[in-house]
């Protein structure tokens, strides 16, 4: 029997387990999935909760519902990975040995890395929506907030779902309009980037949308510390921004255990070949989803497209063939822009987001890089697709690599 161990039963780990259990000959393979948390969170929903679009019960289900019967799920912490011995040591005292290891331990927020951030004002005047508890606390806060200056600050990149902070501030604009208090609220987006977004065409479009909504952008703002009592954030180049309510996207890092095993970069993400997702150091270790250090978005759509291609590639590889350099960094992002509208981005390693129609060239129904109501419905529909199709590793009628069909140059 060959042994495959998957670390992490989040979006990527669950999808790949479902995919491989169908593709591998399970008379010859043992697949073990390890995760410390019995709950699967619908993370894209964390953005919506503070505005009352989703409630708590929309955001989670038990993990066990999504794990196929032939995969063994172990609920335990991961204490250590020993890649030279092909072993994983768990917090419950078990040691797993493997022939192949897939690291899907994701990324998480670290407010403690920024002085003043995760201290006595955390959960009071400083919030985040990047965790389940955080999103619920922020829901309460917004419900009773009387207005003032709301600052959304991204501490550093990369972050999970890089468009979510932009969506948050645009939804906030809509939410305060709906509650008849937009005139009492000042909205500021403080980002370390030199504009609203990284890629020029999308940055320009989103920048215009923010300015139309009266949202100020403070660019190249690299936060050094927070003064929680004075309620201000201070950058390395000594710019100060006062706030009444700070919504922070704290530093994102991969799992510590990955760093300690010598498998991570300075943020604990695993350096891999960006087209095959094979570790640069070990020929039997792969990293999927947010855990991988690849220059594309940390997002469920990326994990989905990567795993679409990874399944076949992994089977080939275990049969002694070479991996094919198939993954192109393909990502989709639905950006909620408020007032029942959304924008869709489709891009990869080489090609920045462009306008067009998606997924059927010339037809749509979704429009790329342009606000539409259909894009908003696509984003809401996505929750059903996530639980019922994506997590179960089913195919979607979308090509895993990006297509230039239906896009136009600007």
């Amino acid at each position, binding site marked *: 029997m060959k042994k495959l161990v998957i670390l992490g039963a989040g979006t990527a780990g669950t999808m790949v387990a479902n995919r491989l259990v169908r593709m591998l000959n399970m008379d010859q393979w043992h697949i073990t999935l390890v995760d410390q948390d019995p709950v699967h969170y619908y993370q894209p929903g964390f953005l919506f909760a503070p505005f009352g679009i989703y409630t708590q019960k929309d955001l989670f289900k038990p993990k066990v519902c999504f794990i196929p019967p032939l995969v063994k799920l172990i609920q335990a912490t991961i204490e250590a990975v020993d890649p030279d011995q092909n072993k994983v040591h768990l917090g419950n005292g078990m040691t797993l040995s493997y022939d192949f290891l897939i690291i899907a331990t994701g990324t998480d927020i670290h407010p403690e890395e920024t002085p003043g951030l995760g201290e006595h004002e955390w959960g009071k005047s400083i919030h985040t929506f990047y965790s389940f508890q955080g999103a619920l606390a922020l829901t309460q806060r917004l419900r009773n907030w009387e207005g003032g200056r709301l600052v959304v600050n991204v501490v*550093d*990149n*990369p*972050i999970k779902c*890089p468009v979510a902070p932009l969506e948050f501030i645009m939804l906030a604009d809509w939410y305060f309009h709906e509650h008849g208090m937009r005139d009492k609220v000042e909205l500021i987006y403080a980002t370390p*980037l*030199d504009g609203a*977004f*990284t*890629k020029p065409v999308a940055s320009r479009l989103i920048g215009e949308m923010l300015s139309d909504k009266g949202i100020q952008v403070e660019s*190249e703002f*690299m936060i*050094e510390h927070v003064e929680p009592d004075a309620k201000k954030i201070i950058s*390395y*180049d000594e710019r100060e921004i006062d706030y009444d309510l700070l919504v922070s996207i704290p530093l994102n890092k991969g799992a510590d255990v990955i760093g300690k095993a010598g498998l991570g*970069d*300075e*943020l604990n993400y695993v350096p891999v070949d960006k087209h095959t997702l094979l570790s640069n150091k070990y020929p039997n270790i792969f990293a999927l989803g947010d855990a991988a250090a690849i*220059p*594309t*978005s940390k997002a469920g759509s990326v994990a989905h497209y990567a795993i679409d291609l990874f399944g076949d590639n992994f089977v080939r590889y275990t049969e002694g063939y070479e991996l094919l350099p198939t993954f192109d960094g393909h*990502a989709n992002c639905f950006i909620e822009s408020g007032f029942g509208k959304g924008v869709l981005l489709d*891009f990869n390693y080489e090609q920045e987001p462009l306008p067009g129609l998606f997924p059927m060239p010339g037809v749509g129904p979704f429009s790329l890089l342009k606000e539409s109501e259909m894009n908003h419905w696509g984003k809401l529909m996505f929750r059903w697709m996530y639980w019922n199709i994506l997590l179960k590793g089913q195919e979607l009628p979308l090509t895993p690599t990006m297509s230039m069909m239906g896009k136009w140059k600007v």
Partner: protein
Amino acid sequence: MATRTICGVTVQVNDEGFMTNPAEWNKDIAVELAKEEGIAELTPNHWKVIDFCRQSAATSGAAPTIRTITSGSGISTKELFSLFPKGPAKKVAKISGLGKPEGCV
């Protein structure tokens, strides 16, 4: 692809003025590009950062992030911002003849 001449050398640049071939770079070019970025003189600490970034890019193929620079060169983030004010990763990449650091989408 556009070209421009700096210190008598013709180099390839992209539309944001980043050199696209690190092999065309030399120290005189760095001094000139630094002046364009508002840095009148390159001190030994500037060079420490530039040298580190050149080495880092030679192995990884991409201009390093702020975090990579500070953990690898021993220069603190605060000092990095005073050496290369406003967006040090981008500024030092430009002066070091490296491409624009890959943003995170």
